[in-house]
Every structure is written in C-alpha cells, then in structure tokens.
C-alpha cells in the first residue's frame, strides 16, 4: 500500500479524486458532516505520501550548483580570503563573457574585515588579467592601509593592475609557475590632443609605479626598465616575470603556495597579538 501511494503525489490530480468517488452519494443531503468525516481517515495516507522535507535538500543542491560545495561556510574562521579573479571591473560594467572582480563589493568587504572582531587576517589570492586602473588602485590602497595582517598569493597570473594589488599586502607570495606581466598603461580608442594624452597616461602610470615601489622591494628604475623592455612580449613592450623572477627583482617576497602563505599569515597574526598584549 504505501508504495502505491508513494507514486500518487507525483501527479497532483489523484489527491482530490479519492474524496469524490467515496462520498459522491453523501454530499446530496448531509453536506457538512461528510467532508469532516473523511479527512479523519484520508489525511493519514496523504500526509505520509507527501514529499518528505524537500526544501533543505533543494538548498544543498543549489549550493553545490552555484558554489561547488554542499554548504557555504559561515565566517567562523579568523582568516578572510579575498579572491581577485578575471578582470577588475571599474566604472564600466564589462560585457558578460568577462569574469570580473567587482570593486564596489570588495571595498565595503575590506571595511568589514577591518572592523570585524572575528577576522584577524586577510589572504588575497590573485589570478587576474588586469582591469580598471582606478578600481585596482582603490583595492590596493585599501589592502595596504589595513591594520590587520595581510598576505597575498599570486596563482596563475597577476598581470597589469594585478601587480599593485599583489604587492599591497604585508607579505607576498608567488606560485612557482605563476606569471606577472609588467607593461605600460595604454589608452585605446580615439586620442584627442596627443601631448595632453601622453601627459595624462604618464601621470596614471606614475601613480602605479609609485605605489608598487613604495609597497615592494623593487626600485623605480628597475620597474620602469621592466615596463619598457622590448623583445619579450609579442603584442606589447614590457616583461613577463615567472615565479622566482618576480622574487629576484624584489617585486614579490617569496615563492610559495597555499601552505606557506597561510603559515606566514598565522605568524603575522600571532606577532600582532604579542605586540598588542605587550
């Protein structure tokens, strides 16, 4: 019996029917008593066959589909991971084929990290192809001004405006195979007034160069030399730094991975705690 009933609720139609044929003769005269009587007998099987708790399951499958995990962790960890992926989106919404990092979400997130009593450190994981200069610099400046310990890890790529973000943390790591492209800022589209445009781009570039030099071990001369080097990039001038090359020029502190960056972050957190208590 229960097995037969189990098939019933899949189709919505059979549910009202059992009441109809059973009590067809009844409704003619005693209308109120009959509907009351059958519910006492019938609801039992109906309730049994009704889908048992579908809602929590749906939430779990939804999470697997959207996030790749059965449950989204709540911020119980003392470390927050900030992922900078794809294009860093700025004042213009980029077309849908771009994976983007939205600065308008990251910026308040950084404010929340700074004031949250539970979060003690930030791990910035980068795999970015660059993006908006202003948005990138905004994120980099905020990360650099955090009072909480921060460590960055460049995986895959940290190109163009990804470079200032990578160096903005207190300590930086790069994976062995990760690359960083250092190349000049360009303006695409129509150029009105060549000398002014050149001045403007030069100023934009100076902002980035100054930030990188201030937040890493590289010298301004070296950074500019890498930026304007010819013969390395096919479509542009500049340099590609792979893994330890970035460490050698002083841009990144160390070659490492997830283990080493988290270990370093924990060390920095412990150091900050000692500093606070003493």
């Amino acid at each position, binding site marked *: 019996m229960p097995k037969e009933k189990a098939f019933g609720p899949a189709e919505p139609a059979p549910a009202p029917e059992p009441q109809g044929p059973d009590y067809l003769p009844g409704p003619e005269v005693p209308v109120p008593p009959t509907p009351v009587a059958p519910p006492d007998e019938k609801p039992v099987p109906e309730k049994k066959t009704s889908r048992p708790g579908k809602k929590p399951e749906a939430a779990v499958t939804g999470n697997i589909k959207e996030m790749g995990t059965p449950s989204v962790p709540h911020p119980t960890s003392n470390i927050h991971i900030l992922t900078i992926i794809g294009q860093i989106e700025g004042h213009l919404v980029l077309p*849908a084929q771009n994976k983007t990092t939205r600065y308008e*979400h990251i910026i308040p*997130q950084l*404010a*929340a990290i700074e004031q*949250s009593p539970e979060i003690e450190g930030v791990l910035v994981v980068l795999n970015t192809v*660059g*993006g908006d*200069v202003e948005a990138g610099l905004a994120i980099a400046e905020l990360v650099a001004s955090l009072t909480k310990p921060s460590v960055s890890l460049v995986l895959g790529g940290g190109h163009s405006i990804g470079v200032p973000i990578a160096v903005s943390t207190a300590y930086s790591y790069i994976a062995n195979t990760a690359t960083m492209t250092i190349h000049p800022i360009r303006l695409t589209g129509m150029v009105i007034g060549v000398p002014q445009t050149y001045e403007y781009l030069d100023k934009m570039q100076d902002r980035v160069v100054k930030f990188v030099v201030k937040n890493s071990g590289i010298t301004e001369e070296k950074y500019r030399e890498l930026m304007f080097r010819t013969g390395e990039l096919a*479509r542009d001038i500049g340099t590609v730094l792979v893994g330890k090359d970035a460490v050698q020029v002083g841009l990144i502190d160390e070659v490492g991975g997830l283990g080493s960056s988290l270990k370093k972050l924990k060390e920095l957190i412990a150091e900050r705690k000692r500093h606070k208590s003493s």
Partner: protein
Amino acid sequence: MILWTVMPIELVLENAQTAPALLEVQQEGRLLLVEPQPGGQGKLVRLISSDPSDYLNPSWQPGTLVQLGVH
C-alpha cells in the same frame, strides 16, 4: 576609465552593447540590484547597504539567486 590588461581589448569589450536591464529589489531592508532570470528569480548584481557585515554575508554575494516578489 583606463583598462590596463593583458587581454586583447577586442575580446574584453565584445558584446559591449548588450547590457542587461537591472531591477531594484528591497530584501530584508537592503537594496539589491538584480538581473531578472526565468522562474521568478533574479541574479544579484550589486548589494547596496551601509552595514559592512552585509558584504561578508554569503547570501548577499554577487551572483546569488534571489527570489523576486518576496519581501
């Protein structure tokens, strides 16, 4: 705006004219900008809130699906 990227600019800006229309939705006192999806749902594009902890809440992350018409 200056885009500084290693991606070819033609690739980045392909289909740049097809911007989706966004809806403003109030949910639990927060203003959400959502992109309508089939089935009465909307994909969260932007959260507007002055509470910083909202931005750490996984259910307000951009890309989350929200039920429209439920306040």
